[in-house]
């Protein structure tokens, strides 16, 4: 078994601020993901990474940067937080290769004042 941890659990920022969210996994999974979930909605992919130092854009990458510092960690940066933005950011990981399930972290809830 393994676990995915996300920090912080709650993040409050000011408009225009750069904010960073962090994710760690101990599954030894190759691929990691960042999703955004707006209230009452499904998940939308922001970035993913299939190995250390790799980055792939998802449908929602504009306004975000990501960094895969090492196999176990994946960071997401909101480059300029937008006022009234409120969403949960979910990190996930999986083994590379067909047939692998994705496992999710508990999420970081972002509020921009």
């Amino acid at each position: 078994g393994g676990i995915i941890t996300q920090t912080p659990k709650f993040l409050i920022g000011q408009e225009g601020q750069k904010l960073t969210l962090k994710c760690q996994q101990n599954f030894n999974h190759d691929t990691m993901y960042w999703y955004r979930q707006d209230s009452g909605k499904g998940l939308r992919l922001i970035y993913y990474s299939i190995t250390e130092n790799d980055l792939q854009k998802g449908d929602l990458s504009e306004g975000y940067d990501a960094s895969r510092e090492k196999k176990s960690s994946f960071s997401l940066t909101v480059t300029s937080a937008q006022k009234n933005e409120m969403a949960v950011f979910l990190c996930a990981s999986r083994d590379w290769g067909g047939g692998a399930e994705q496992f999710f972290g508990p999420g970081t809830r972002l509020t921009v004042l």
Partner: protein
Amino acid sequence: GQQVQQSPASLVLQEGENAELQCNFSSTATRLQWFYQHPGGRLVSLFYNPSGTKHTGRLTSTTVTNERRGSLHISSSQTTDSGTYFCAIDPNYNVLYFGSGTKLTVEP
């Protein structure tokens, strides 16, 4: 792009009733996955079911790939089943595409 449609959007049951959640998708090679999300909680994988039928406890997942549909059956529902259920497809072995979810409320 990939399309994943879930129905119904919401469902209210009395405890003990059964539920049938539907998922329709645009790709034939889907590797369908079902998730459960408790309000305010993380997503928990329920089933990874590329095709056929799988059972876990009171839950049954059925995927009919050539008809581009899947279903999640919950038997004898309990109040603790309340939450949101998502289906997702993985047509390219790398990225999941999610439906918008079915919000289930089970009343005592």
